[in-house]
């Protein structure tokens, strides 16, 4: 502790100088954490679909007119029965016809009404509110940031209520129960502004050839989005309450072929094409492999684009820090000489400088934590789509450790190369 006391005393002698150094260090750490948390934010979106996309499969996009002009007998059978292409039957058809261990992820959404048939009061003045049914395996891995509350349970609670999360821009109150045509729903979490609607409900803008998983998400902000507010609900719970209402269907359908061989995969794709639907993707062009590849490129790009900025910023701050501490050591040489006279070992002076660095880095860490907490309080982090996780801490600690080790080289060398006898004779 004595080294910290002496180091603190030396620091406070040039406090304004060190405040600038500490602020610069904190700035680099905030920048690093911002990049890492933006990466985390994207990882959060990728994670629910990672397992699905690790296999083989395709995404097909259904256009609104799909079905009427199809020459496929299978499609015409559905259309003639319902007068339109009834999506649940279409999904059943795909499940029946496709070969292999096929799974189909689609994102039906339903207009929600109050128990008496009127609009649900939580719609917040909007004409409607949609309930988005997310497949249970994906819903439970999906952890979109919440501005308050928690992520819903996958089971109906003890009061028979289905727990849901809701987007912003509504009258919904946290922990309030609403009686609807879909049963009693309880709002247990409210999504942050600048959140995302999971893939399937809205088609991505078709302005590029290949898509990453992030292109299938739809950004949602209650103030600027044209879409209605929405509720996210676990698929299994949704299915347990059948009110016989027809779903609206999203245009994107993820079809996983499971672990099928190439021939079966091509056969499946040929069948999808034979249905005559205008499909976005076919096996080999917009397969899961391509999405996976584009997603990885996107994620790596976050670091690759920011890395030069981070390195330059860290180098500039490091140079400032090394210069500041080296200058300080040279200025304090007389003080170290006095300490030596008073019984200090010369190498203990190095320990004092190391303690100085620890204080500087600790202060920068505290300042960084404060700045990040402020960003959290003001929802700034959600504005940039960031999520903080343990890797923020690990990377910050690693960055600080590297900077610390580099920063102590010159000051330690200055002290080690000086002779205490000479310092005492010439300075004291």
């Amino acid at each position, binding site marked *: 502790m004595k080294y910290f006391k002496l180091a603190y005393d030396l620091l406070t002698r040039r406090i304004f100088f060190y405040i600038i150094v500490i602020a610069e260090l904190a700035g680099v750490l905030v920048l690093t954490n911002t990049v890492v948390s933006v990466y985390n934010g994207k990882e959060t979106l990728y994670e629910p679909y990672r397992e699905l996309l690790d296999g083989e499969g395709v995404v097909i996009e259904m256009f609104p007119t799909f079905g009427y002009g199809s020459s496929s007998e299978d499609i015409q059978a559905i259309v003639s029965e319902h007068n339109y292409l009834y999506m649940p039957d279409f999904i059943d058809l795909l499940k029946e016809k496709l070969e292999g261990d096929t799974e189909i992820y689609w994102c039906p959404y339903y207009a929600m009404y109050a128990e008496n048939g009127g609009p649900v009061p939580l719609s917040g003045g909007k004409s409607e509110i949609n309930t988005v049914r997310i497949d249970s395996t994906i819903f439970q891995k999906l952890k979109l940031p919440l501005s308050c509350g928690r992520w819903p349970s996958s089971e109906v609670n003890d009061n028979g209520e289905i727990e849901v999360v809701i987007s912003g821009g509504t009258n919904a109150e946290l922990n309030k129960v609403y009686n609807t045509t879909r049963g009693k729903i309880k709002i247990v979490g409210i999504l942050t502004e600048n959140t995302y609607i999971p893939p399937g409900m809205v088609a991505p803008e078709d302005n590029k050839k290949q898509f990453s998983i992030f292109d299938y998400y739809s950004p949602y902000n209650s103030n600027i989005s044209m879409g209605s507010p929405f509720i996210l609900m676990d698929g299994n719970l949704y299915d347990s309450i059948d009110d016989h209402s027809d779903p609206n269907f999203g245009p994107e359908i993820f079809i996983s072929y499971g672990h099928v061989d190439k021939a079966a995969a091509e056969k499946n794709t040929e069948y999808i094409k034979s249905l005559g639907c205008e499909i976005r993707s076919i096996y080999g062009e917009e397969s899961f492999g391509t999405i996976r590849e584009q997603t990885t490129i996107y994620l790596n790009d976050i670091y690759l684009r920011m890395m030069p900025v981070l390195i330059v910023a860290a180098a500039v701050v490091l140079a400032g820090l090394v210069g500041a501490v080296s200058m300080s050591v040279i200025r304090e040489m007389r003080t170290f000489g006095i*300490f030596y006279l008073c*019984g200090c070992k010369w190498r203990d002076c190095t320990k004092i400088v190391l303690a100085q660095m620890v204080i500087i880095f600790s202060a920068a860490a505290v300042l960084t934590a404060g700045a990040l907490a402020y960003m959290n309080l003001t929802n700034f982090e959600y504005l940039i789509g960031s999520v903080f996780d343990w890797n923020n801490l690990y990377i910050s600690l690693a960055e600080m450790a590297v900077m610390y080790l580099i920063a102590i080289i010159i000051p330690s060398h200055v002290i080690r190369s000086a002779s205490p*006898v000479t310092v005492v004779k010439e300075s004291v």
Partner: protein
Amino acid sequence: MISISNLTKTYNYKKSNAFTALTDISLTVDDGEMLVIIGKSGAGKSTLLHIIGCIDTFEKGEYTIDGVNVHKLSDRALAKLRSEKVGIVMQDFALVEEYSVIENVKIPLYFSKKKKGSANALALAALEKVGIKELAKKPVNKLSGGQKQRVAIARAIVNDPSFILADEPTGALDTKTSSEIMSLFKLLNDEGKTIIIITHDPEVAAVCKRQIEISDGRIKQDEEPTEE
């Protein structure tokens, strides 16, 4: 007791520009003595004091403090000796100007393991002994030369060392203040401290019973002045 025998100090030892500052120095200082080392500038007085104070090293000879052979000690042991056995007072006070009086006095206590009470209490007791307890919280850079030297003496005695070494302690002071500082050293000597002072001021030298004169790195004279 300090015992030095046949001590030689050469700067840049074994190099082409080697310079011998002390040659074949032998002397003994008994506990409770108060002596002065005099000599012209460059005679080797300060070098000898630095060696006695365990700040500097030497190449030949023997030097023991209370029976401990200094020549064979590690850095750690030398630091312990400086901290616990020796108090050093320098001509320009060697104070940390930005520290307060008490912070300066407490410095040796950070590096000592023989503390016998709280650092504040020990520092205040040392300040009281040198008569400036009321200045404890004052920044050192606001003090006069005499007050600064008292702070330096307080710092030298805060660890209760056996020996106090003073290198030109009155060199930066006026006559009246010099006299006060020498009275303080006399007082400390009366309390049992061994005092070794380096000076070229005859009035300062006259205060001490024993005078050692150094010339060209050798002891020229070592005697107690005859009383007139």
